[in-house]
């Protein structure tokens, strides 16, 4: 059989709907992961029980297979009376695991900040939340944003597992179409392109954020050791 994309035409709506669903669950999952990663990253730097708890969370979620977490949320939680539909289970699962991986990245970004910069904000009288929001996170994210991007790309790839909890995301949909049409080559070619497009979109977003966060020259903040001028933004 020659390669013939027109065989997909009758199923295009289904496939595109799947791709859209994947895009939606990933976008929300990435947003949740970003929020959780920053919060956990900040907490994990500190001592005390909050810091220890944050580090414990990260260890637990990084050491359990993603599919097990998904099953636990979708099939386990209803046993104790917590029902979450497949879509929001997907968002939650991606957020929880992405938050765990991302927090490590944020944490090392924070640890690389010149302590004197934070001290200057302290003696200036800024409150702790203001220091975190205005000084610590913007500087930490300058270096953390690229590795965070890799975490987010991995989330997109992991989202294919969500077909196992009845979510009509693009991988599950594609398998259905493939078995219906007996044209796995064309169907999976579409799937490849869909994931490539989604991850490319994530990379573009990360690049834009990176440029924005590094629109000045690297100096006495987190990015010491970078090649001179390498961080110079173009925005």
């Amino acid at each position, binding site marked *: 059989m020659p390669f013939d994309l027109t065989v997909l035409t009758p199923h295009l709506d289904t496939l595109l709907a799947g791709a859209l669903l994947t895009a939606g669950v990933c976008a929300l999952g990435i947003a949740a992961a970003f929020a959780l990663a920053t919060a956990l990253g900040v907490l994990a730097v500190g001592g005390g029980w909050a810091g220890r708890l944050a580090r414990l969370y990260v260890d637990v979620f990084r050491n359990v297979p993603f599919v097990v977490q998904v099953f636990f949320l979708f099939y386990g939680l209803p046993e104790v009376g917590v029902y979450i539909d497949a879509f929001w289970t997907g968002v939650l699962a991606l957020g929880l695991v992405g938050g765990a991986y991302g927090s490590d990245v944020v944490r090392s970004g924070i640890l690389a900040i010149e302590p004197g*910069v934070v001290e*200057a*904000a302290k*003696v200036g*009288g800024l409150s702790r939340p203001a220091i975190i929001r205005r000084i610590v996170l913007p500087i930490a994210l300058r270096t953390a944003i690229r590795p965070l991007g890799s975490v987010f790309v991995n989330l997109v790839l992991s989202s294919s597992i969500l077909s196992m909890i009845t979510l009509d995301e693009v991988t599950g949909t594609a398998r259905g179409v493939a078995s219906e049409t007996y044209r796995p080559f064309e169907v999976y070619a579409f799937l490849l392109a869909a994931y490539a497009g989604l991850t490319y979109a994530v990379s573009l977003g990360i690049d834009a954020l990176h440029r924005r966060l590094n629109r*000045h020259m690297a100096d*006495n903040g987190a*990015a010491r050791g970078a090649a001179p001028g390498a961080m110079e933004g173009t925005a």
Partner: protein
Amino acid sequence: MIAVEGVVKRFGAHTVLGGVSLTVAPGEVVTILGSSGSGKSTLIRCINGLETLDGGRVTVDGLDVADPRQLAQARRLSATVFQLFNLYPHMTVLRNITLAPELVLRRPKNEVEAQARALLASVGLAGKADSYPGQLSGGQRQRVGICRALAMNPRYLLLDEVTSALDPEMTAEVLAILARLATQGTTMLFVTHEVEFARRISTRIVFLDQGRLIVDLPTDQFFAADGGLAHPRIRQFLSKMAPSSTVAGAPVSEILA
């Protein structure tokens, strides 16, 4: 008034400040001299609340810096200029200066920006408001650091070796600004190795030796043969300083002669 009363600071088993007492009254320019490791920076950090005390008390206009609430108030009264500038690298020069006055003192943005621009102009950086710290020379950065401190309209200015990361030309730039502040009556507590400069602008000089304040004298008495110079540690310290101290004022060799 800044009042340091019997302050003790230890790092592990190492006692860095062994009961230091010192006052800085409004209008005074007090210089802390002392050899490397004598505890000068630690003393400054005890005053601005960056270190917790192991003994004694520090108050700024009666506010006890050991108490978090009072420290927050005290930090509105004093401002610190750092040896390594510690500018916020991700903010423009203007934002570096306006951030704390806006957030902490809650002053209106346009008023703070106008003051910031005036301060920048007064230190010869009128054109740099929109630059980032990484685009400035060390001397320019330190001048921004001074503007950032002054924008808080502080009653007390704390300065810890603010020129020691700068080359002689930049040092001269920054010292000229500090000299002007001193003549304008700005209250300063000043750690420096620029002995000549200290002599010129200080009302008092204190000498820290291994965590103890061994001398606290008006400037002319500090340099008098029967005053500070009677102290062997201080003679030794000043003679070591001599070769590099040519930025401002008379060379130390003349004082020691």
